[in-house]
């Protein structure tokens, strides 16, 4: 039986893709297999099986350390041939977006990246992704016999996933990377994982000064949220680039996104459209953010945010 093959260097994303792939695979008559590469790959096999993979291909070859795109694509291509993959899901992370097109080229496959929705329609997979700077959603099909989709984290959920057979195979792969790692250092400044954050406070140009962002930090702490921002604030170097949400940054799908002093321009809101709940604090009742919000607080953030922090103390 042909299979739907799943890979991501991030185990949480890989589990989500296996769970979603299992449901779609069932509709298309495809089994689901997963791939784990690099250090610790063997330990990931049981998690992927629990999420629904019937077979897990594992390789801890040194060439996969750091997951260089050329080596990973080569390894995935060999495993895809071995497994008889008709469809490959790659997590659309930074590394995944480098890997998926290379993999597609090796397989002679079509490729769609930044996929945020997938459906089986008429025996085919239809992928949804933002187009025209986030203004529209393009739904696309691939016409090649083998299809590669780079799928955004949190497109699927592992809730309710049924375990697969989880048979482990360790194929011998012929891979090498043309990239030599010269040095690896911890990134300076803060590091945050917005993709996985369940609660996000977004801050924008409604804040008058960099030091005022402390209010946003207090609100985030009171909510148990992570702080993200519009690109403007990163351009001002008020916050690091890791905190950008939107076209130039993270695409998030939190349980709650609360935008404070964020006007709601589409370049930013495309990064939060997948949130279960969107709320906003803005003194302009006509701000675009309110048109896409579930809840809106119209008022000066310098008054509303302290009131919110105070109220949250009693929760």
């Amino acid at each position, binding site marked *: 039986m042909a299979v739907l093959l799943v890979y991501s260097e991030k185990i949480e994303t890989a589990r989500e893709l296996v769970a979603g792939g299992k449901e779609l695979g069932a509709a298309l008559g495809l089994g689901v297999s997963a791939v784990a590469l690099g250090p610790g790959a063997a330990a990931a096999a049981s998690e992927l099986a629990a999420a629904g993979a019937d077979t897990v291909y594992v390789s801890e070859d040194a060439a996969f350390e750091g997951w260089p795109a050329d080596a990973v694509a080569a390894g995935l291509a060999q495993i895809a041939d071995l497994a008889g993959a008709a469809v490959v899901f790659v997590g659309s992370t930074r590394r995944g977006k480098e890997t998926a097109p290379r993999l597609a080229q090796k397989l002679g496959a079509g490729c769609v990246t930044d996929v945020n929705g997938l459906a089986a329609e008429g025996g085919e997979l239809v992928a949804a992704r933002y187009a*025209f700077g986030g203004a529209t959603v393009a739904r696309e099909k691939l016409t090649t016999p083998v299809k590669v989709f780079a799928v955004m984290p949190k497109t699927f959920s592992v809730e309710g996933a049924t375990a697969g057979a989880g048979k482990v195979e360790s194929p011998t792969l012929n891979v090498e990377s043309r990239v030599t790692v010269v040095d690896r250092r911890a990134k300076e400044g803060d590091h945050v994982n917005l993709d996985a954050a369940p609660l996000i406070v977004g801050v924008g140009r409604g804040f008058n000064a960099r030091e005022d962002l402390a209010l946003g930090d207090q609100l985030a702490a009171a909510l148990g949220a992570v702080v993200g921002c519009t690109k403007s604030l990163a351009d001002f170097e008020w916050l690091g680039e890791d905190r950008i949400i939107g076209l130039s940054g993270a695409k998030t799908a939190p349980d709650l996104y609360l935008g404070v002093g964020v006007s709601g321009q589409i370049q930013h809101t495309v990064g939060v459209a997948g949130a279960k709940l969107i709320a906003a604090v803005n003194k302009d009742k006509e701000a675009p953010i309110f048109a896409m919000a579930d809840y809106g*607080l119209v008022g000066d953030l310098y008054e509303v945010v302290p*009131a*919110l922090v*105070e109220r949250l103390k009693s929760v």
Partner: protein
Amino acid sequence: MQIMKAKSKPLQVWSLADIGIEAPAQVREVVSNLAEEQDRKHILFEGTAAEQADAFVDALIREGVLGR
């Protein structure tokens, strides 16, 4: 001024065939490309900052986001 001069320059148009390239087969078919529909509640709170904060936090508790 330079833009106005550029406007009157001849425009060379080449097809793929002119430059020796065969058009690749289409591998993607666009089924639709439409503005996204967002199904949101659009609830705007009113009142003082404290009143709005109370109402919003109560809403988050009802939604199950807080107090879980």
